[in-house]
């Protein structure tokens, strides 16, 4: 199997680190070598955060080379667009369209680049929704990232049983039900498209 490279982009506080962790654990359960990276620190307070996961038979570096990302998992639109240089013509975008304005846009010094982001989506195979709103309908807005994982699951060689087992082991006990629903919802959402 060719190594699969997943880039995650989000905003500090969105749960990117846990999402990265779940992907890694699921990949290992499925029998693959895996390495991930995520940047935390000063960026955890509403700043940009990102992570990379590489899944394959043998993975050396956790970093994704330019043009080699197969999937970008955008927890926020601007933070998905930021990593376009890692994509290639076959890459997929799975993104939460719920915009979180950075300081420069909150202060009206720079427009939030909604139009550029829409064009960015169009350049690639994309799977988009306001996953925060979807998760809220399912019972908890915080399960948005699990909906994203559900969407992504159909493109990865990891069974839904393994995904769900991993989620059960890694989300808070009282959030297990909503996460199961969120995963299923994501998994079914784009079935027709793919």
């Amino acid at each position, binding site marked *: 199997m060719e190594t699969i490279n997943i880039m995650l982009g989000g*905003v*500090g*506080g969105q749960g990117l680190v846990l999402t*990265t*962790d779940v992907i*890694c*654990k699921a990949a*290992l*359960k499925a*029998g*693959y*070598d*895996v*390495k*991930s*990276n*995520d*940047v*935390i*620190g*000063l*960026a*955890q*307070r*509403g*700043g*940009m955060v990102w992570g990379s996961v590489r899944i394959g*038979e043998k993975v*050396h*570096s*956790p*970093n994704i*080379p*330019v*043009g080699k990302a197969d999937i970008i998992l955008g927890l926020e639109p*601007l*933070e998905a*667009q*930021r*990593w*376009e*240089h*890692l994509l290639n013509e076959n890459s997929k975008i799975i993104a939460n369209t719920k915009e979180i*304005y*950075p*300081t*420069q*846009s*909150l*202060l*009206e*010094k*720079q*427009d*939030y*680049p909604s139009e*550029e982001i829409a064009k960015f989506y169009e350049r690639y195979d994309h799977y988009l929704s306001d996953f*925060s709103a979807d998760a*809220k309908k399912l019972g908890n*807005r915080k399960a948005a990232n699990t909906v994203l994982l559900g969407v992504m699951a159909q493109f990865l060689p990891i069974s839904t049983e393994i995904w769900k087992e991993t989620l059960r082991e890694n989300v808070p006990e009282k959030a297990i039900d909503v996460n199961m629903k969120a995963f299923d919802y994501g998994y079914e959402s784009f079935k027709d498209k793919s």
Partner: protein
Amino acid sequence: MSNQEKMVLTGNQGIARGFYEAGGLLAASYPGSPTVEILDSIKEYEEVYSEFSTSEKVALEVAIGGSFAGVRSMASMKHVGVNIAADPLMTFTQTKTNGGFVLLSGDDPGMASSQNEQDNRIFGKFANMGILAPGDSQDAIDYTKAAFDISEKYHLPMMVNITSRVCHSRTPVVLGERKEVEPRVFEKDVQRYCMIPPHTNPLQHSMKDRIDKLKEFAYDSELNTLEEREGADTLVVTSALVYHNLKELELDVSIYKLGMIYPISPKKLQELSEKYQRIIVIEELMPMIETEIKMMGIECEGKKYFSFTGELHTEDIERGLKKAGVITDRNTTDAEPVESVKRTPLFCAGCPHRPIFDILKKIRKRVIGDIGCYSMAMFEPFQASDSIISMGATVGITKGMTKANALVGKSEPLVSVIGDGTMFHSGLPGFVNLLHQRNENDNMTFIILDNRTTAMTGGQATAASGNYTSADDMKVDIKTIIQAMGHENVQEVDQFDYEATKKVLTEETNKPGISFVIAKRPCALKFKIQENTFYVNPNVCIGCRNCIKTNCPPIRMKKYHNIDKLKSSIDPDMCAGCSVCAQVCPVDAIQPKGQHPDHSKKGSAKYKRQEYQKMNLNNDDKE
């Protein structure tokens, strides 16, 4: 491949696991990125005594005590923490180590979350320690265990030097069993433990002897691995994550990966230099390995091809090796990130720092900042932090600037801000020092941001946290401690009472003398504060942007249906209900959800914060 017995850990979790498997019994740390999760993880092991100490110096001393008493002990800290711990470290390392001792240093090439980029491998050598450098989570486990074994066998303290990328990277590991180690005993031996001359004179020689013995150990140690390619005439000497990044390139070079990066075996390098035409060293930051090899009289190259700053990713390695002529073509492309709107970090919704810096911006005073979440006050829109150096430095710097200003006939009121964690870490000596040569004309205002936690590193306890939550046990009263020093003017404020706080800060910064203001609101993130949310009535909003200027994540200008001008808005999913925006609104357009006051009568719509979430300053709001 079978992964039944494998699991995924971060490098930090690997260090914690390695400590546990090594039979470690005592661990101390001070929270700092990138290493904070090490002690967080160790706390889960019941057999182990662990603590977040009040500073890295204290943490190191606690670990020295553990080692003296004969048990395997570890102090973990970020790279700059070693600066604070350097005083006990440099003298302790002279002693013949009793219980195994490991200093874990988390370096930060590229400075993802640090104020400088110092290379602590240099520090390890300076302190006559052996140094191991893990490159993934399995290394983190194995090297930590090896470090304890080496420490006890050769009676020297060991450094495990890990970089931020390895700390946070997740890789598969195989777990081992915990080894129970027989504790050694502390026997009175003044020549061994009392570091005064003449005891210290022979120790200079014994430290050198220990390192010489480690050089022999390094010759065929399994920590160092040689991967030889047939026909290769170039040998790359490297370590840690750089090794894995290099492996991505699948080059026709032999690789000597140093698990122990100091000391290096001269005998081994001599043999290798006879076998290879070229030796190229690839390492992040300083030319440490390169210099060591050159000092053996062996030719090698390194920093002439690779940057002395930042991380060395696969692309950087490939570029450097092309420059060196080792490869002729490149397969990777240098990253040119997309130009887009930057996203700087900002205070969380409900953050108690927000009103303080909004006020400081409005009253236009120079602010000498410090290390913590409040460092972010330097960003737009507050720009209310004019210097940030190191933990606790604001206190001395504020005094020095004030005294210097007075010497040149300049009188400028200065505001110093410091968090509770930082104050306990290294602000208190500065506060005492303020009493020396006090001048009633000096105008200094010290604001202690007592949010009851070290917020930036994920909410660890401070020495005052026990006043507020039964989960923590230290209950130092900040006001009492400062008054006991002899400072008379100490006040407490609830900064969510915006006008009252503004009044205090205006008065204190305008009058000469030393003032202390303790801002008491807790961290919204750590204490999960969620009050009734607020909303904007767009028909009342005049678009003045006072609320926007508080830079709260949920507040932004919005186009409303049937209203021409942009009006403010609050995302209810993100609002924590702190009420600061409502208090800075001049027309009471911002109200708590569910309240719909009559705006037609002047004054009737005034939002009264007293009606809402008043905080008791008498510390009885315990969980």
